[in-house]
């Protein structure tokens, strides 16, 4: 790059054209390797990027650090159940009333099979912010005097240099690849959420690479109708995945599929209660490992079920 200014060649006058970033879930997830730190967007029972998450399981990735949502859902539980995870960074993993704590997550945490980087949701965003600001840490007040610095020794109490107050230093949560589910994008990666977008912007801003799966691809002209709504301005890869958050909800498209979630929870609770993986493995085989792609997954779920899911 350095010597071009003196070279005087004419290559830089070639017009070229704008490169679409649309790809399929298989290619999108190819950037991931064992041991990476993966951010997963959404919130409890909504908007997890499941087409990508299931593909990640199909690749049988190992030793991942998973940065879930501030309140993670059974997406993280599934990744733990599949043995992909060495460490979970999340203030909560569960499904509210459907499963107060993710069963496979709880099983693995209680058995010491995974490391849990314990923190509160404000500390979680402090860590993401530090990453997006390229700082080693962000300070936060809440957490001092609690068990958090003991059960997560990476959180350091320190004296603030201005007023001498006791604060917590939250290390940057640096994400290699963020996986996000959103409503729409154009083919150049200008993504818009329906709804609040939860913490997806913060996960994106803390990551080196962002892959977004969307319910619909729309034209750049439609994106430009409301540029204030663009939540991820330039995803590295976009995957078209209608019903891609299933069995979770997708704002503006469909609510969570409680029946399907119940099926998963029952299987994972058997593991927690009895140590037996048989029902869980049957679930995983049917819905995750055997379908070769997202459409085959949807076929397993069945079109009738999908069409029945209505927000109102």
């Amino acid at each position, binding site marked *: 790059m350095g010597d071009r200014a003196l070279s005087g060649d004419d290559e830089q006058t070639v017009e070229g054209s704008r490169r679409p970033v649309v790809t399929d879930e298989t290619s999108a997830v190819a950037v991931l390797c064992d041991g990476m730190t993966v951010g997963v967007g959404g*919130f*409890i*029972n*909504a*908007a997890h990027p499941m087409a990508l998450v299931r593909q990640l399981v199909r690749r049988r990735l190992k030793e991942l650090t998973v940065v879930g949502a*501030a*309140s993670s859902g059974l997406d993280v539980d599934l990744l733990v159940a599949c043995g992909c995870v060495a460490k979970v960074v*999340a*203030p*909560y*993993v*569960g499904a*509210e*009333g459907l499963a*107060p*704590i993710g069963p496979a*997550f*709880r099983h693995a*945490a*209680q*058995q*010491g099979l995974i*490391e849990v980087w*314990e923190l*509160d*949701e*404000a*500390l*979680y*965003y402090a860590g*993401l*912010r530090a990453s997006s600001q390229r700082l080693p840490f962000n300070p*936060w*007040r*809440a*957490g*001092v*005097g*609690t*068990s*958090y610095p*003991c*059960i997560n020794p990476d959180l350091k109490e320190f004296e603030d240099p201005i007023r001498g*107050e*006791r604060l917590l230093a939250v290390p940057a949560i640096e994400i290699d690849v963020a996986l996000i589910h959103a409503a729409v994008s154009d083919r150049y990666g200008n993504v818009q959420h329906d*709804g*609040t*977008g*939860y*913490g997806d*912007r*913060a996960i994106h801003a803390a990551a080196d690479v962002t892959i977004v799966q969307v319910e619909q691809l729309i034209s750049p002209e439609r994106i430009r109708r409301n540029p204030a709504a663009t939540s991820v301005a330039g995803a590295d890869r976009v995957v078209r995945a209608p019903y891609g958050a299933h069995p979770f*909800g997708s*704002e*503006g498209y469909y*609510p*969570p599929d409680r029946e399907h979630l119940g099926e998963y929870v029952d299987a994972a609770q058997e593991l927690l209660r009895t140590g037996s993986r048989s029902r869980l493995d049957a679930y995983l085989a049917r819905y995750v490992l055997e379908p070769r792609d997202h459409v085959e997954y949807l076929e397993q779920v069945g079109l009738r079920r999908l069409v029945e899911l*209505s*927000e*109102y």
Partner: protein
Amino acid sequence: MPDARPEGEGRMSQTAAEAPASPFELMATALAHDLEDGEWVEVGANLPVPRAAALLAHLTHGPNMTIMLAMTKAYLRDEPLIEEFELITDVRAQRWAEAYYPHDRLLSEMRFRRRGVFFCGGIQIDQFGNSNLIGIGHDHRRLAFRGPGAIGTCNATVHNGRYHLVTNEHSARVLVERCDYVSALGFGDGTPGLREELGLGNEGPRYIVTPLCVFDFHLETHRARLRSLHPGVELARVVEHTGFAFEVPDPVPITPAPSPHELSILRERIDAQGRLRGAAAG
């Protein structure tokens, strides 16, 4: 999502409307009475008691409260029937939104929380008002029971103007002498001035509200003490089911029951499904 509510349940039968307040209704009413107009309060999804408390205050004396529903700001006094949402991500709750809060913004902007009131639960709550959502056990790497985690309680109990501890189960398992872990700091070990010294933004937990009674905290020792018994509850039952010793006033006040007006708002507009009328543990 199909509506699971049996037909006609929204319209109360005369009998149901006149039934005395249930323990959960009493809890919601006690919390609602403490809320003031103009305050900022989050309406959780799967927390029926605090949800009902916030809405009851809003519909009675809180027209200017900031009601946070599914991460949106809502105004609900014009709604004849406020649907119940089991999931905080239920998009139907956003129909009333005046503003969206991306969650990261909600968890960064603390200055507004001075007007905030928060309700904090716990798998353990101790005599000094500390709460534990982390787990039960001695080795945090291999907990006997792994709790849900602090979620946001560690922060919300620091930055809101005040907060209450709330438990749906009044038992010696929950109400303990000392928490195994502390995810939301109350008064620590009772050392005077601890919260001020740590620069925390409020005076600590105000009440512990349970299905049997209300505790508050001694101003000097910071130990929980009985504030009132719910109507019909015997003191001995509370003592038996509480894991710590506590001071008892003489005479013991009785928690005010909801007025008929409040009860009708609760049953007809806020809790038509009747979740508060279910049995409480303890």
